[in-house]
């Protein structure tokens, strides 16, 4: 019996029990349009790739990480210095989170600019925005877990921001911290969010998001749709998937290279009684919001500057979430203005981030 016969026998056995060929037929019939904006289609699967890497490396780290006030920092130090390849696993986990968040932003902005959220894909966009928030939640909760001075102070600042929200602000801060201040309870709570609540949420949202994409198919660029041009299409399986694999391979190579040459460091354990260190900064993806809060004056008339800034951010989030409903006539002037807002937002976010870094 040759290996070919063995594989063929195994496939027949599996086919009789799972009807895999029907899935293959379905994927073969599903098509992907090919045009000059097709490159943005690859960002969705790149996010899934980094999410998978996050899950795998997260499982590895959770075997050694101890989410208690006394042991959290020490256990991360142990992962980095004593566990074989531990520092690489931690570095890959951190860098794949950065890559994932960056590509989530690129993915959403590309959809905003190409107006791929237009009817009937409004819910796909909304589930995508929820996924962005969950991803940022992963980043925010994960930042505290090494429990060093910088992560403690940044979490204090970060969890203090919702306090400026009128009416519910104080309660939100208390809920996030598990008390009045950032303590060991916050660490345990953030660990729970990071490894239990947020993963469940992201899996549910991903299922909804992928289902909606399957239902409505890939969106065409607005000008192409308006001109009713015939666009070249290729089957999703295997033609498009092979192309995606090339992108995945390059991204994995870049990820490992960066993770090995630029591993994240670890400061000494946080001291709850120590004063906040200088230069507290959140992770890069929160820097533009952090800078926006910093430039607001302490008081505008009789209202606190922080309250105004937080209300502005909340309004921005609501606008972002309901974008497909606001931009209901994308080909008209309103649609063009909303596209310009996307570019203005990109320039604003980059400028604020650079300003914050300097």
């Amino acid at each position, binding site marked *: 019996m040759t290996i070919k016969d063995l594989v063929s026998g195994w496939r027949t056995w599996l086919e009789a029990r799972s009807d895999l060929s029907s899935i293959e037929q379905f994927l073969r019939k599903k098509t992907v349009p090919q045009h000059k904006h097709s490159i943005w289609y690859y960002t969705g699967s790149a996010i899934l790739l980094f999410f998978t890497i996050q899950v795998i490396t997260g499982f590895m780290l959770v075997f050694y990480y101890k989410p208690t006030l006394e042991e959290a920092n*020490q256990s991360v*130090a142990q992962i980095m210095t004593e566990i074989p390849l531990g520092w690489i696993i931690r570095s890959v986990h951190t860098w794949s989170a950065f890559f994932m968040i960056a590509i989530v932003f690129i993915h959403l902005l590309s959809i905003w600019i190409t107006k791929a959220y237009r009817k009937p894909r409004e819910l796909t966009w909304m589930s995508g925005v929820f996924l962005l928030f969950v991803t940022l939640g992963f980043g925010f909760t994960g930042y505290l877990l090494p429990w060093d001075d910088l992560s403690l102070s940044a979490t204090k600042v970060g969890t203090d921001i919702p306090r400026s929200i009128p009416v519910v602000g104080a309660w939100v801060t208390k809920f996030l911290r598990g008390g009045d201040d950032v303590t060991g309870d916050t660490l345990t709570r953030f660990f729970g969010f990071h490894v239990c609540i947020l993963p469940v949420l992201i899996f549910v949202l991903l299922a909804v998001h992928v289902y909606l994409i399957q239902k409505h198919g890939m969106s065409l660029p607005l000008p192409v749709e308006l001109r009713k041009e015939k666009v070249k299409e*290729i089957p999703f399986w295997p*033609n498009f998937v*092979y*192309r995606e694999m090339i992108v995945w*391979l390059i991204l994995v*190579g870049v990820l*490992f*290279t960066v993770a090995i040459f630029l591993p994240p460091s670890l400061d000494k354990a946080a001291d709850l009684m120590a004063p906040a260190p200088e230069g507290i900064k959140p992770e890069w993806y929160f820097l533009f919001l952090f800078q926006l809060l910093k430039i607001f004056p302490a008081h505008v008339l009789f209202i606190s500057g922080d309250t105004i800034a937080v209300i502005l951010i909340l309004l921005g989030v609501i606008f972002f979430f309901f974008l497909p409903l606001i931009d209901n006539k994308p080909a008209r002037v309103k649609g063009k203005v909303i596209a310009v807002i996307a570019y203005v937002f990109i320039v604003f976010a980059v400028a604020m981030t650079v300003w914050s870094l300097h």
Partner: protein
Amino acid sequence: MKKSIIGFLLCILFCAFFLPLFTLAQEVQKQQVEIPQQEEHEKIIPSPQDIKESTGIFVFIGWIWLVIFILIYILRLKIKEVDRLYQIKYFSSKED
């Protein structure tokens, strides 16, 4: 009379089974208290410790990129082939 005997026996059983557990728990607690506090570390910046490790890292990265380039080459050939099959409608004619 019977009830008091049963009660007495239950007390003995309780002592026989649970008291050693209490003692064990106390001992574990004692041991935990006695564990010396690990020394606090300074900032840890992971980097290769010696020339052997840094060479290993470069070799590892080299291998990763070599494998990636080979796989990309194979995938490009596969893409050409599946695109050709799609153009000649190989799979749709097979289904018919």
